[in-house]
């Protein structure tokens, strides 16, 4: 008996610790698991939001009397899946994935009804991540058997130091774009109608100015809603 004194205290402590561990440890483990689940969900949600922010599409519409074709350019850093095309309040389900920096033309979509005189159409599309992009050509209006668009574009594929880009109307010299840039990389010039435009691109070095492009370009609508300029 003398040798065994204190054993009961040790045993009691061990039993107490055993009870503590077997009862409380599962709780701590479960809580830890819940915390991990929460952090993971938060991370997934923020990743989805970031990817949504990175989506950048440009849509160009080419309508005919019965249907319209959409050209979609993915300028963003993430692949984009298009799930719906809206024609005013009517929607068409589609499923097309466009990789980053790629361009695709969707299959022609038949108008939900025959366009009537002066009827307007707003074409937009929705991506899987919840972004909605309106087409770059604005609202389309049908009249006199043809389509009128709000916006047309001249794409100038030029870059360099000390550049000037000037776009004017062929006839009345209205200036639509006139910009000097220290560093210029590619330009999208919006013009209000189809027709012919005068494009001038100059580069400046100290006091010397060199004209690298000086020509007329034509937006031939329909079907083109834009024209590309490639200076030599």
């Amino acid at each position, binding site marked *: 008996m003398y040798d065994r004194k204190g054993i009961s205290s040790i045993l009691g402590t061990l039993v107490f610790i055993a*009870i*503590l561990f077997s009862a409380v440890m*599962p709780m701590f483990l479960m*809580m830890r698991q819940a915390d991990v*689940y929460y952090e993971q*969900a*938060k991370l997934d949600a923020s990743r*989805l939001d970031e990817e949504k922010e990175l989506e950048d599409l440009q849509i160009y519409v080419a309508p005919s009397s019965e249907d319209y074709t959409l050209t979609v350019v993915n300028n963003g850093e993430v692949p984009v899946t298009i799930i719906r095309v809206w024609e005013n309040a009517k929607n068409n389900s589609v499923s097309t994935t466009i990789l980053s920096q790629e361009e695709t033309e969707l299959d022609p979509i038949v108008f939900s009804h025959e366009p009537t005189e002066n009827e307007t159409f707003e074409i937009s599309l929705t991506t899987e991540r*919840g972004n909605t992009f309106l087409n770059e050509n604005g609202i389309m209006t049908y009249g006199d058997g043809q389509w009128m668009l709000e916006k047309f574009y001249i794409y100038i594929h030029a870059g360099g130091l000390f550049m000037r880009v000037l776009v004017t109307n062929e006839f009345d010299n209205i200036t639509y774009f006139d910009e000097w840039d220290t560093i210029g990389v590619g330009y999208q010039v919006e013009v209000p109608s189809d027709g012919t435009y005068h494009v001038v691109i100059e580069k400046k070095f100290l006091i010397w100015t060199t004209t690298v492009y000086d020509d007329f370009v034509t937006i031939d609508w329909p079907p083109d809603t834009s024209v590309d300029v490639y200076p030599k």
Partner: protein
Amino acid sequence: MGGIEPEPRRGFNLIKRKALSPVIASVILSGMVLAIGGMVWSYSYGAASTMANDYADETIDMVHTIIERFNIEKVYYNSSTELVTIWVYNYGSIEITADTTIKINETSYNELEYHISSKELGKIEIDVSDEPILPTNQEITIRVTTEKSNSEYETYYVR
């Protein structure tokens, strides 16, 4: 055979039985310790389980709140049917339950508890026939709130 009966050998019996009560005492003590220990363990385990389950439920609820994703994709007023149609896209991974409120000239109209599954487009129609036909450029404000208290707002102008 007469004479004095021999005295019972009590001392002998006591000596013989003297180890019994410590054993019984130990058994009783052990039983009590086990019973009390079991009760303490059972209470602790139950309390810990309840706390853990509550914590997990709260966490799941919080997760559902932060992962809800939806937007008001399109709004359209049809003057012939006098309906305002609101398309809500649930692009999140869980179903949402949406309460939609539109406001026209300080008058509110509601559509409550509309369920939209994950990756589905919900079409919510609200009758505004109590209003006169809405003129072009009439402002309609739309608010969609889920049961997790996430909200989206949109302003629509009648065309």
